[in-house]
């Protein structure tokens, strides 16, 4: 009896250790990329992924989404280095706050303020891109400890963060938002990682989700490297 309970304790300890080392658990986001009614999927063209600000979070998102789109689609994607060459001030803090943007009760999901549209148009004029995917982080928060929410691992895995990333796809020369995504997610991670590492992993996950959603919903099948033709 004693041996059996000892084995049980040991296996539980191993289980806990595996969870601690494995580290990260996330939720699947609930929303999707949406094509604005009447708009067609993109089947050719050039695209630039623009960071909404010069913050480290936005820069990371823009780099990762650019990488994903370059690797997985036949679109001509401007590299972030190319953007910097053409606009020495990029990445820059050009967007004005529009926090109500992600409030989907009262404002349509594809909302982009006129002021921000104008600023983005100036960027587009320097690039000549046919499409811009604008992404910026709103309301990133992080905390540690405590049993919280519905994640069964949350009492063990100590670090948590929350992030929302509004994305807009704008078509030029029409200067019209043709698709949008208000990505929101939570991320749980082991205490073994620093908050910086946790947030970095979270941003990579968010970028992958955003680019996968973009290729599925906004891009024509022929533009996918694995399934389409060049």
């Amino acid at each position: 009896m004693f041996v059996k309970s000892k084995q049980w304790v040991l296996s539980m300890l191993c289980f806990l250790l595996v969870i601690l080392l494995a580290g990260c658990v996330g939720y699947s986001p609930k929303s999707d990329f949406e094509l604005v009614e009447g708009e067609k999927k993109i089947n050719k063209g050039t695209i630039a992924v623009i960071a909404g600000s010069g913050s480290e979070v936005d820069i990371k998102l823009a780099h990762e989404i650019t990488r994903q789109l370059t690797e997985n689609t036949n679109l001509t994607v401007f590299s972030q280095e190319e953007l910097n060459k053409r606009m020495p001030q990029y990445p820059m803090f050009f967007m004005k706050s529009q926090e109500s943007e992600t409030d989907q009760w009262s404002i349509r999901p594809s909302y982009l303020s006129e002021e921000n549209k104008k600023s983005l148009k100036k960027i587009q004029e320097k690039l000549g891109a046919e499409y811009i995917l604008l992404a910026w982080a709103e309301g990133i928060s992080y905390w540690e400890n405590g049993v919280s929410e519905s994640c069964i691992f949350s009492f063990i895995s100590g670090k948590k963060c929350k992030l929302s990333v509004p994305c807009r796809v704008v078509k030029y020369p029409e200067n019209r938002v043709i698709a949008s995504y208000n990505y929101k997610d939570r991320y749980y991670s082991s205490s073994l990682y620093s908050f910086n590492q946790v947030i970095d992993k979270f941003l990579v996950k968010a970028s992958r989700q955003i680019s996968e959603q973009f290729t599925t919903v906004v891009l024509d099948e022929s533009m996918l490297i694995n399934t389409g033709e060049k």
Partner: protein
Amino acid sequence: MRIKSGIFILVIMFSFVSCVSYFNLKKEIADAEGSEIAVISGINNEPNLSFAMMLTASLQKHSKLKVMSQKKIAESIEYYPFRIEGPWKFAYVDIEPDFERVNLEKIKEIQKRLGVKYLYVVWTPVETSYTLQNTGNVYELHTISQLYEFPDGEPIGGSKFVIAKHPGMFSSMGKSKRDVMMYYADNVAKEISEQMKVIKGGNS
């Protein structure tokens, strides 16, 4: 009991304040007096540029260096300020330094345009705020900096500290964010001037 815990909190607060190192010079400098220095904002946002401007003014006040004005820097370098890849691996919550990641080429280009002997580049990539129960709001600006000596472009000093507006800290009690930043800029300028032996009223 209350007095004892009050003293304890004061001691902790004092030790926090006194632990901040605003600048560390890595090599002896004997002949810097009269040399030209420029303070460069490593990120193109308002807090970073403000700190660079305040530090410029403080160095002009405290040191015997010739300190280039931010106006002259902006006239000499097109698009200034712009982002220079800084010395960190991560900078989301705080700064995890990695000095290999600095874009030294960009820094050398800037120096070529300005022609100064010393370039002090300061980055403030992380701005955070949080609320302490029963105390109030805390605002933090995480900074990291490097001092480069030319013609070689060798990094000869620097620092990493947090500009903190904390309701419980002597240095920021009742002060605005701008006042707190000026306090830090003044301390950085004094330490640079002392360690480079160019402080006004000093024995250099």
